């Protein structure tokens, strides 16, 4: 039965995990995402679906529990906020190296270091460029509403298993803490062991009855073999770039200026777009939904007919670099951002856009 509930983004992640048939969540509390673990503990899914919920002793332990569960073909996940995600980088790299599916949620807070518990998008580079050591890509989804916090848990598991790749949901403290209406889907049953063997039997550690053994590892000391593996990974990432780019476009058809923003900043920017349109300024919004793969081609197409891009982020200017790399024309690309846990108000962002437009005249 479909239900509509008013809930926080963090609660939506927890409920989606249970409802989507997740097998295990392993996490360690950190503000502003502790409600994910708290909600799961309150839901007690081990009594209903059999899903395991475990508070590990640290983030390092959590990600390695995820590594273990994923090796068995189970649908497993973890969540944390910025400093905790840094602690998970080694494990993430191992999981990517072993080509295992899993879901990680980062409800970002301001940094560097312990920084602040207020919202930020300062981990964009970490998410899309260097989630850990070695040449690997995550798939990165950026929810901009509580509904998407819910829906993207399903999408993330689908993508993770489709490509045997870790998928990161990159959110922020504001989306995690805010409440909106959410459409809750009916319960999906967890996969049975037989279904897991059928789906993942070629690689997962499921007990080797009647087949050759599967080894889940990221080590290959023969450089020739390792390079072959690197090439295989890169071919997979190329396929992902060609097939999985997702973005939302509003009012870009006739736009003179396009704001590029994701997550909470996309919501703020859509208000800026409304304010601009009221004053007769033709503003469009391009919201990357996948940050990796990035909507490079679409941005380049738009660059051939718009007068400028403004990239709005809660950081010092990170995604703006990917927008500049996407654009092959000399159309100006400017950044507006706030840091330290400050959320840019629509009014100040609109002022920044007007300054940008005036500069171009």
């Amino acid at each position, binding site marked *: 039965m479909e239900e509509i509930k*008013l809930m926080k983004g963090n609660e939506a992640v927890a409920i989606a995990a249970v409802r989507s048939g997740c097998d295990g969540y392993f996490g360690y509390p950190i503000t*502003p995402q502790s409600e994910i673990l708290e909600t799961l503990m309150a839901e007690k899914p081990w009594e209903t679906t059999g899903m395991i919920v475990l508070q590990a002793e640290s983030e390092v332990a959590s990600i390695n529990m995820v590594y273990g569960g994923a090796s068995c073909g189970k649908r497993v996940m973890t969540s944390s906020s910025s400093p905790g995600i840094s602690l998970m980088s080694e494990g993430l790299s191992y999981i990517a190296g072993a080509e295992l599916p899993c879901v990680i949620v980062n409800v970002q807070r301001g940094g560097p270091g312990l920084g602040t*518990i207020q919202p930020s998008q300062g981990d964009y580079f970490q998410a899309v460029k260097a989630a850990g050591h070695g040449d690997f890509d995550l798939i990165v989804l950026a929810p901009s509403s509580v509904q998407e916090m819910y829906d993207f848990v399903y999408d993330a598991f689908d993508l993770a298993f489709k490509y045997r790749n870790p998928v990161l949901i990159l959110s922020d403290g504001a989306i995690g*803490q805010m409440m*909106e*209406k959410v459409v809750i889907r009916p319960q999906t049953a967890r996969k049975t062991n037989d279904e897991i063997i059928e789906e993942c039997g070629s690689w997962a550690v499921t007990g080797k009855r009647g087949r050759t053994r599967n080894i889940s590892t990221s080590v290959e000391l023969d450089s020739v073999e390792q390079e072959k593996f690197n090439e295989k990974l890169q071919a997979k990432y190329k396929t992902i770039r060609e097939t999985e780019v997702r973005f939302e476009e509003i009012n870009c058809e006739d736009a003179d200026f396009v704001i590029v923003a994701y997550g909470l900043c996309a919501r703020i920017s859509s*208000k800026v777009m409304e304010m601009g349109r009221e004053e007769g300024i033709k503003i469009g919004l391009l919201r990357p939904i996948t940050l990796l793969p990035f909507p490079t081609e679409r941005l380049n197409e738009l660059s051939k007919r718009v007068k400028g891009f403004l990239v709005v982020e809660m950081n010092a200017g990170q995604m703006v670099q990917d927008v500049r790399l996407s654009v092959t024309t000399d159309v100006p690309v400017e950044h507006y951002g706030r840091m330290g846990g400050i959320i840019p108000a*629509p009014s*100040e962002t609109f002022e920044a856009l007007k300054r940008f437009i005036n500069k171009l005249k």
Partner: protein
Amino acid sequence: MMKEELIIAGFGGQGVLSMGKILAYSGVIQDLEVSWMPSYGPEMRGGTANVMVMISDKPISSPVVHEFDTAIILNQQSMDKFESMVKPGGALIYDENGIVKAPTRSDIDIYTIDAVAETVKMGNSKMFNTLILGGYLKVRPSIAIESVFMALKRSLPERAWKLLPDNEKAIKRGMEIIVKR
């Protein structure tokens, strides 16, 4: 068209966040779009707390704004910060208790509600935010009182339903005691 951009601001423990939640829930009951954005902090009580609530019959773009249709202000720090952020023609609701510098804007509607004194009369300090909520519903009738009653019932666990009649009474009382300045 219905659109309300509201901030409720005061001390942690005054029921600021839960008042916002009841209003957002009431919006859901009326099949409206809502968002509830708290300023979250490390402490549960004592610090300043505020919540932005958007209620609209259209999808809500930004859950964060700096110009409000209505501000409900429950301490001086919040008055200092948010009085200037009320849109011209908007409404500001406050309890004079604890406010040393009254609002001075002349381009907005200012309402006072003597809720602290009323809780003393009622002998129940927990009804403070419910009284204020009632005052708000008088000023902004687009949220129906029946929706609020339903939201209260649905958001409280069954063991707390015995408190519903007192809450309903406090909402109605709040509607009576709010005055335009």
